[in-house]
């Protein structure tokens, strides 16, 4: 541990030499400089369909002297956690694309003394007042602002199977060998589905449920895309996915009968995505302007369509595109765990689950 303390001391000296990241916003004047936004690959990588390009273009159009620069660290936020741990500098001002479980992992790894994200002054982000309360992370250190949310549900082919309506359906003979799910260690959707089963069966019962699922021949693949492409190839008639799936199906002209949404128990597991300011950045004010822009109605509508997720702000603030409104479904009862429930539990739950699935 002494080594770590030494490293972080040395690191802060090193960070100061990165002069390019230090910018000063004159009090009250037009903000200027470069805002480095760290995010995940698919948020930026397609010019026509992902939100990154649109956000950069429109934000820069509004703030003449500001440049938005994207970085997509390998393995996402865990890359920065490790940087902090080793005392290296974090080369970003804000992070876009955090889940609740990321926060829990950050705190479990870095402890109380080292901070990756700074506490956020909500008053500096006026639009933050429109965020729907049920999407708040419940972070005791209030670091994160949600900007969109997905709902985990089942997607099924109605020509092949009947609509699954309860968790018990999935372990019944009618659904044997039909379900594709994801690894809860590596896929957000997989972890959300696992948490959903913990919400349903409790910490005493979820492993039994998963044993039943395994006995009923569930197939668990590494990432959402792997399982979804297996579904598209008709390898199985049902996949754990998002309730916005039909938006993609509509864009790609795929038959809607193969993209039916199944909400178990009329529920869907909410997986809000958030953004936070990197601790120690000199661009706090500019970051606040950026967050306010992200939560503005037009931006929210654009993110919804391009990221195919629901807006984070209340409905009266957003004018959603018709096709989105028609093909994206909200579960009657959204469920999710907040920071408090996951804190201290998450890694154990996931570990036990993984051991159950892999036991050989």
């Amino acid at each position: 541990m002494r080594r770590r303390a030494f490293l972080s001391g040395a690191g802060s000296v090193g960070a100061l030499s990165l002069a390019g990241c230090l910018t000063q916003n004159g009090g009250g004047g037009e903000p200027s400089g470069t805002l480095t936004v760290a995010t995940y690959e698919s948020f930026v990588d397609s010019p026509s369909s992902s939100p990154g390009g649109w956000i950069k273009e429109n934000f820069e159009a509004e703030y003449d002297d500001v440049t938005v620069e994207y970085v997509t660290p390998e393995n996402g936020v865990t890359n920065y956690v490790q940087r902090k741990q080793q005392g290296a500098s974090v080369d970003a001002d804000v992070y876009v694309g955090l889940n609740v479980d990321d926060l829990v992992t950050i705190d479990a790894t870095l402890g109380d003394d080292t901070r990756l994200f700074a506490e956020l002054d909500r008053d500096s982000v006026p639009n933050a007042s429109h965020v729907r309360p049920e999407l708040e992370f419940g972070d005791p250190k209030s670091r994160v602002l949600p900007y969109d949310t997905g709902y985990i549900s089942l997607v099924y082919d109605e020509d092949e199977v009947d609509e699954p309506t309860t968790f018990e359906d999935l372990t019944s003979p009618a659904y044997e060998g039909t379900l594709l799910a994801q690894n809860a260690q590596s896929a957000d959707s997989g972890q959300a589905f696992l948490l959903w089963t913990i919400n349903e069966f409790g910490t005493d019962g979820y492993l039994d449920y998963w044993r039943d699922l395994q006995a009923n021949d569930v197939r668990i693949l590494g990432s959402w895309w792997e399982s979804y492409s297996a579904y598209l190839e008709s390898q199985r008639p049902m996949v754990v996915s998002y309730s916005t799936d039909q938006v993609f199906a509509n864009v790609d002209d795929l038959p809607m009968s193969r993209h039916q949404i199944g909400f178990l128990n009329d529920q869907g597991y909410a997986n809000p995505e958030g953004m936070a300011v990197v601790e120690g950045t000199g661009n706090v004010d500019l970051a606040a302007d950026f967050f306010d822009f992200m939560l503005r109605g037009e931006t929210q509508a654009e993110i919804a369509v391009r990221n195919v997720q629901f807006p984070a702000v209340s409905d009266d603030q957003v004018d959603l595109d018709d096709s989105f409104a028609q093909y994206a479904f909200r579960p009657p009862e959204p469920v999710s765990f907040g920071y408090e429930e996951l804190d201290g539990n998450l890694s154990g739950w996931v570990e036990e689950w993984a051991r159950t699935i892999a036991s050989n």
Partner: protein
Amino acid sequence: MSRGARDDVAERGPADADRKRTVSTDRTLRGLAVVATVVTALVLLLVLYFPVGLVFAEAFGGARPFDSFVTTLTDPFYTGVLAEVFARPLAVGYHVDNVLSWFGGVSVGLGGVDTPPLRKGLFGFTAYQAALSTLASVAIGLPGAYVLANFEFPGRRTLRSLTIVPFVLPGIMVASGFYAAFGQAGLLNDVLAVVGLGPQQLIETNPLFVVILAHAFYNAPLVTRVATAAWESVDYRAVETARSLGANRRRAFRDVVLPQLTPAIATGALLTFLFTFLTFPIVLAIGGLELATVEVWVYHRLTETLAFEEAATLAVLETVISLGVTYAYLRYESAQRAASPGEGPPRERLFGRARDATPSRLSGPRLAGLLDARRLAITGYAVVVFVLFVGPLAAMVLEGLTDGSGFTLRHYEFLLQRQAAGASFQTKPLPAIRNSLLFAVATVAIAVPMGLVVSVASTGEGRWRSLLETATMLPFAVSGIVFGIGLLRGLVFGISLPGGWRFVLTGAVAIVAAHAVAAYPFVVRNVAPQLAGVDPRLVESARSLGASRVRAFLDIELRLAATGLVAGAAFAFAISIGEFDSTVILASDVAGDTVTYTMPVAVERYLGRRFGPAMAMGTVLLVVTAASFVVVDRLGGRVERG
């Protein structure tokens, strides 16, 4: 070079002008050799031992240094039935009873041998699938070596060059190719449907089988490659001698050819076992969590849950096992007498009527019939190989050329458009191609001298030699994930130095260094056995005729090891092109205009919702690398003959 002290012999010879020039070049060469040795040691220290050590050190971070190992070894989840042995190592009687009672439960019936369940644990399962993969790779690879070494047919040389291609394909792409070929909606089922056969569900019903096939896809060509090289240098005069002394074909093969092939086959098997023991992308993509290996566990602990101590403990255990296997093999290898290089078997023509191909003394209808049976078997083998190797690749190329409705060029259009109009944060195809080729050439330039230095250093006798060689084989025994994370935490994040300075290494230099470290063991494995096989009397005569030690090495030993050097260079090239784990970590950190991503990284980045363009980029990777291998091999052939 322990005999270097005798170098001054040359200087005392006749002092004519030519001799002086030779002496001064020799001095330069000797200086170069020293520099190469020092640089090799530094690169290994900085890019291999330090980063790996950094990760391994995490394993000893508990309250007491070996706690984490005790916890792991006594956990049945990891070690299966052996957990009890680790927990109570002294209770010998108890363990013997357990073994006996297990054997007591074995029953032999009509349905075969029935055994009581035996919990393998994560390590046991990992070794089990690696052993199966090795068997499959040798079974599929060896006949290929037989055909390539014993028959002449159009395109033989090119086919031989292409055996290295699977090696450069990123795991994620191969997994996609296997899905596209053998999945329910895959190419194989399309073909079967034409013939009127129902769809088969290979990946669905037997993922372990498909994982092993995918491992064979990677490693059978490796077996073919090393075995072909050995077969082509078998001393066939000995076969003729054996035949003239009355041995039949089979007997001559068993007594003369096979012993000369065994070390090469064992090398292929060892490498296959090491690679598949440390496997993870293929297992993860095809088998899922249910077929998890130790490496899958390490991967998740290191990249998702950040449980470093647990991951490092597993990684150390993995490495200990791999190094143990390597050491055992090297002891075996040094016990084998290296064969003196011969001309290889006379090649028969594969096509054309059997009678034409048969040497006149082996005439007679019975023999011709036998030969036809042999050709029939080769044809059958070719079909299997075609389905297994060309299937996934063809399926991938087709995916790049089709969309839901039929043939299209729009995925390639996407690549062109991305190249022309892509933003700075987007991945473009051309820089990826340029970087891949550039890094590969640089890797060859560094890994070949490095490998040569290590080969020379480890040429010697006995136990110490094997130990030293085992240590230099570390890159084979350490998983890519551990190596990558070590580089990330050690070099990319930087090493803090006194005075608040940080030593940070990123960009092209770091990538090439990482590739060179991953590649040089291939050079060693190809060169060291050949160096060891050089007849010392040749070197002695050169020395007695006045050649310096360096000169003798260059003119005699190096010439005789040229084949190995070329083979090693080809592998170094392949490793660099195909490397993904550390490239993606080292490349992602570079901001600004000097992008350092490579073709496999580009493929991975396009995968996601854009399957078509990813497969189009994969096809580009395939074409570029296949073309460069044919070039490398042709150039290499010139070196070998020269």
